[in-house]
């Protein structure tokens, strides 16, 4: 919307102007396009996988510059499933960055997952869906979807599966990942609390005797609380994060969605 204010007094409008007389031609090179097709809608997303579940979370604020577009614009989408609300879906996609690209990406992946079911008569596996998402993103390598995506679900063994992406489709399966505006705030906190980075067993002695703590899959309640803590912290220090926290918890029972208000300032 901010681009609507960048208008200036039109110089090539109707009526004659000496400035616009055709005195120079192709020698000056092609005219540059002033239109920039991207914007940043802010917000942050976060995913953590456990032994039997995956949690995806995102704040619900949508911004453009210093304006708040909406206090409830979800960044989490059910992929696959039935009907307009995608009931019975087992895969969740979160996208943060340019919201219009995020929506287009979601619709393409959702269509593709549904086509897979029609053509193969079975639900797509998360790792196949993850690879396909990578291909969709890379397919627009030279005009990318300006989004950071995180895909969550359960793998063939019923373990939590979490895949994170860059805008051009490079991807990786991980235990936890933060993305978006406050990712730099949240990610080191997650390193410490989920992967137990820089933590040593206190009983293991000193100096070279020290033994690093080994990360293990966390219980669901612990992960939910970590997600809440990560977001309440991010809200304090990042203006583009706030209003509400949407969480989707994927277990073998299906997708459970929760909403918690965050500070609206």
């Amino acid at each position, binding site marked *: 919307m901010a681009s*609507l204010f960048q208008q200036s007094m039109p110089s090539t409008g109707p009526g004659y102007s000496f400035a616009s007389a055709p005195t120079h031609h192709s020698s000056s090179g092609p005219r540059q396009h002033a*239109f920039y*097709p991207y914007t940043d809608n802010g917000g942050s997303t976060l995913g953590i996988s456990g032994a039997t579940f995956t949690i995806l979370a995102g704040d619900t604020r949508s911004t453009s510059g210093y304006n708040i577009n909406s206090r409830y614009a979800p960044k989490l989408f059910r992929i696959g499933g039935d009907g307009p609300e995608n009931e019975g879906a087992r895969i969740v996609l979160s996208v943060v960055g340019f919201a219009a690209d995020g929506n287009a990406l979601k619709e393409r992946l959702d269509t593709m997952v549904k086509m897979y079911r029609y053509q193969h008569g079975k639900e797509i596996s998360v790792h196949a869906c993850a690879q396909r998402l990578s291909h969709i993103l890379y397919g627009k390598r030279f005009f990318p979807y300006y989004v950071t995506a995180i895909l969550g679900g359960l793998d063939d063994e019923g373990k939590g599966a979490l895949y994170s992406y860059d805008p051009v489709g490079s991807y990786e399966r991980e235990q936890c990942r933060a993305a978006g505006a406050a990712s730099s705030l949240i990610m080191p906190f997650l390193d410490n609390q989920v992967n137990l980075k820089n933590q040593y067993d206190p009983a293991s002695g000193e100096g070279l005797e020290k033994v690093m703590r080994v990360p293990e899959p966390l219980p669901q309640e612990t992960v939910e609380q970590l997600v809440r803590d990560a977001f309440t912290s991010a809200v304090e220090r990042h203006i583009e994060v706030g209003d509400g926290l949407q969480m989707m918890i994927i277990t073998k029972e299906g997708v459970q969605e929760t909403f918690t208000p965050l500070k609206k300032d």
Partner: protein
Amino acid sequence: MNHFPEAWGRPRDDIYGSYNASYLPQSRGGLQSHHQPTTHTQQPIVTGTSVLALKFSTGVVIAADNLASYGSLARFTDVHRLKPFNKRAVVGFGGDVSDMQYLDRLLNSLDVEENYTSPTGDAKSDDDRALVDAPLMSAKNLHTYLAKVMYKRRTDFNPLWNALLVCGLDEKDQPFLASADLLGTTFSAPSMATGFGAHLAQPLLRRVAPDEAATQELSKEKAVEAIKECMKVLFYRDARSMNEYSVAVIDQSGVELKEDEKLENQSWAFADRIKGYGTQTV
């Protein structure tokens, strides 16, 4: 004497021969096959300013003034920027007016297409009756359509330079309000405002309707009053606005559109107290 100023000071055809355009691309009458990239509208020309809309318990109210500006010139003063689509959807346009007119034509042809199979006279057969009862395109459907048009055009680097508010009733006859802009960005909120209204009116509207729950309690009268008050504030402070505006109310009974409203109870009494940028007190 040649009366075309662009020819003044240039070599005369009768003396020097006609201009040798061979080095120009074919699109400009030359012989060169390497053509320049297609160029598109890269800035709006004739523009409309803010559009405001607010949900209430049974419907939506939307307003926009009747001015189309050419830069800072108030060029056209009777341009109606609220376009009713059917009896439960209205689109409000901010931004470029020619792109608005293009979209309006597009919506008209869409409407014709949607209603083409509907019989005009009495429904005689069961088939005809089924068509008469065929569901009307909802505001939500319309928003999805427009959002995809806008996103397609930005992806082609040929944007429709508008900010749209689509409002009305969704397929369950609940109030619906959402926006789409030249980048294809879409979002929805209890109250929405484009352009300058996002800065000036939205804070006032959010005080009336901070969340969805508040809109359920909001009466039509209160909503219309809030919107009219915001139009007044915008006229006081937005230099590209005017005091004649259109307002539409969409609820179960259909669209009630008024296109020549005037701002009422203006008071410029606040003006003589303003010093500096408004917050200065001494």
